[in-house]
């Protein structure tokens, strides 16, 4: 109690020495120092966000080019030209790795984590601001290396984002002698960046919460980002080790993954998926957290079973370390092992389903407001459900033998990742936009963008489910060479998927215009436009350097006290004393 009192005392408005020092630095900062060399967690969050958005354009362009080749083999793709077989491999690889490593990770974890954690726990910054800046700079370095790899001799890496040896290890196979090591280096540097960021996030949450904020007063989205960061830290190590080994295989000719030299190519698959499967939950959990925030706010109702959500998230995280070998069912692993991994894989759907039920229970009996962020959150539940349910087929090793490497896998995967990386990210950007810029996004155009994304999304991947069930193999450059895969209707489905993709991409222009127009010209939003309880809404919009100009808040209650019977208003901010 006494420590709480001293803390509030020592750091009241303006009299904290740190504040003074910040104030001094302010007027001498030029544009470059303010936006590129800043240690402010919000600016660093924006740096991650905008880099992620830029990379999404690259990933989106890559998928446009190779999907056009699949639908109309041999055509000269407008804006790209003819897609050769080598180009095709490079485009597929680029799309996959960019969307996961350079879009989903930076936007969902790094950008949101940086922006939200200090604000939502009532701190003025991260505990290590300069480490935070370094982490973004490392990330930027990885982006630059990756982009450079597009222009070297042989072009960008063409060994798929999973980078299985021997395809990835030998230039004779992947035909990208320089692209491969550059890609691997970029990925490894990016991991180092996120490790630094993750350590910063976890330490910040553990040590810098506002006075009075107990463990179970922390908003779900912060919990989720932290659990995801710990999952990342605990799972990425073997892949970092594997990346060093693969880099040696590529460049100096060691044989870690070469059976001729006593190595083992399946070892890479284990190292990769030991990271790769927890990685699914690394990005899923923040998206789940975003949805929890939005659903409670716009249902005006307390989150159903707050603690259960946290326990299930921890359970999901723990279980996610024991499912990785379901990617190797046909790689020659012991069938007894396949049985065990089938069981663990099917088990993991239970905690995830439980979170879904909690969200639906939160909606039940609430007074629902269908704003744009709420639409995205609801769409997340619906679309992710389809992704999860189709995973059951693939987790069962018997069915997976048939479905392995078909478009069914691909469609399942995109039904989970698109809701996570895009629906989740759009939900977050539309929800926190008023906080970030102090202005509203246009609701009408927001809804146009919503429907223009959700409808084509289903028209892309439902056809791909059907194709996969008919045996369509996923790594084929030109299907006209495979009569079995050119049965009546199959090419029509491919064309339908491609055209839907073009429509989906076109509607993203609506988002970009709405985003940047609203950032400067949108209707003014106050500090708490959604009447939410969490601490970030109690700071001004946009929050200044140091976040809370009236002194850092104290916390008196949990984050979801909506429609409390004793209160006039239907919300009760965490920091309001009465």
């Amino acid at each position, binding site marked *: 109690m006494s420590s709480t009192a001293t803390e509030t005392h020592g750091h009241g408005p303006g009299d904290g020495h740190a504040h003074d020092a910040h104030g001094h630095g302010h007027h001498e900062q030029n544009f470059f120092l303010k936006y590129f060399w800043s240690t402010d967690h919000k600016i660093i969050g924006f740096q991650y966000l905008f880099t992620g958005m830029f990379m999404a354009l690259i990933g989106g362009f890559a998928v446009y080019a190779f999907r056009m080749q699949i639908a109309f083999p041999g055509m000269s793709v407008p804006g790209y030209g003819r897609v050769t077989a080598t180009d095709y491999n490079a485009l597929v690889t680029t799309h996959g790795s960019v969307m996961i490593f350079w879009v989903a990770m930076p936007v969902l974890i790094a950008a949101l984590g940086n922006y939200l954690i200090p604000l939502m726990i009532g701190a003025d910054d991260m505990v290590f601001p300069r480490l935070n800046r370094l982490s973004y700079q490392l990330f930027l370095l990885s982006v630059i290396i990756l982009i450079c790899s597009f222009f070297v001799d042989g072009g960008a890496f063409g060994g798929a984002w999973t980078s299985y040896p021997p395809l990835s290890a030998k230039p004779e196979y992947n035909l990208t002698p320089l692209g491969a090591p550059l890609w691997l280096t970029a990925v490894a540097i990016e991991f180092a960046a996120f490790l630094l960021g993750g350590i910063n996030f976890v330490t910040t949450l553990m*040590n*810098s919460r506002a006075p009075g904020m107990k463990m179970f007063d922390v908003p779900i989205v912060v919990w989720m980002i932290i659990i995801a960061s710990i999952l990342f830290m*605990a799972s990425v*190590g073997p892949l970092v080790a594997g990346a*060093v*080994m693969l880099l040696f295989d590529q460049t100096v000719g060691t*044989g*870690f993954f070469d059976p001729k030299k006593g190595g083992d190519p399946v070892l890479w698959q284990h190292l990769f998926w030991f990271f790769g499967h927890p990685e699914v939950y690394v990005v899923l959990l923040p998206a789940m957290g975003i949805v929890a925030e939005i659903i409670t706010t716009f249902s005006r109702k307390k989150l159903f079973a707050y603690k259960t959500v946290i326990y299930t998230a921890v359970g999901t995280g723990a279980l996610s370390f024991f499912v990785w070998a379901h990617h190797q069912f046909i790689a020659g692993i012991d069938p007894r092992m396949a049985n065990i991994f089938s069981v663990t894989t099917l088990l993991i759907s239970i905690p995830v389903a439980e979170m879904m039920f909690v969200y639906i229970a939160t909606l039940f009996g609430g007074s629902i407001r269908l704003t744009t962020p709420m639409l995205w959150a609801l769409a997340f539940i619906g679309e992710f459900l389809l992704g999860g349910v189709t995973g059951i087929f693939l987790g069962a090793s018997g069915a997976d033998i048939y479905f392995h490497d078909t478009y069914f896998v691909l469609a399942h995967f995109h039904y989970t990742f698109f809701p996570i990386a895009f629906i989740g990210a759009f939900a977050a950007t539309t929800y926190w936009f008023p906080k970030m810029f102090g202005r509203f996004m246009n609701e009408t155009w927001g809804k146009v963008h919503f429907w223009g994304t959700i409808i084509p999304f289903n028209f892309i991947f439902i056809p791909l489910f059907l194709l996969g069930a008919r045996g369509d193999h996923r790594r084929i450059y030109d299907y006209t060479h495979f009569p079995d895969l050119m049965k009546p209707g199959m090419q029509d489905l491919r064309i339908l998927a491609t055209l839907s993709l073009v429509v989906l991409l076109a509607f993203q222009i609506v988002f970009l215009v709405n985003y940047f127009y609203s950032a400067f010209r949108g209707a003014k939003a106050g500090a708490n436009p959604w009447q939410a309880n969490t601490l970030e809404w109690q700071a001004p919009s946009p929050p200044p350097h140091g976040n809370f100009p009236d002194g*850092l808040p104290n916390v008196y209650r949990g984050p979801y006290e909506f429609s409390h019977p004793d209160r006039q208003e239907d919300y009760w901010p965490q920091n309001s004393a009465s």
Partner: protein
Amino acid sequence: MSSFPRPIATTRSVTGISTGKLAVWWLIASEIVIFGGVLGSYVMHRIGHPEWASQAEHTNTWAGAFNTFVLLTSSLMAVLAHQAAEHKDGKKAAKFLYFTILGGLVFLVVKSFEWTNEIHHGFTLTSHTFWSFYYTAAGIHGLHVIIGLIIMAVIAQDAKKGIDLQRVEAVGLYWHFVDIVWIFLFPLLYIAK
């Protein structure tokens, strides 16, 4: 360096553990899985290939044992530095940190003689997958030793002036971790024949 205005967030300590120490613990947690990946792969290969013993017998067990002794002693010096820092004796802490650095340097010198000798006998990174593991695992460890030496030199410089003495304990934690990794590497690479 220390003129950087620290945010209030850095000065808070809800857990009661200092923020720097907490961060080092998380750093160590993430490093454990990195070394776990290398060593796990190596152990699985050794189990699958008993014939690698014929390569492993060319490692110099005595050099490895001597290095183990050196690293353990340097860890003791790190503990003494921490003790001095607890008593706010920056000069003494710096002195013991320099002894720790000396231990790390001796370790690297022994290692470089060892590797030179092995490479001269044709046991290179690419000659056999055992040696690939040997150089990769010990190389990553050696990199950690070098990084530790640099950090300790910086911290000793500050500690001498009595600045940020809490860092002495944090770097000590890291150094013990580097030491413990070697405790795993030594039997796996040198003794298992």
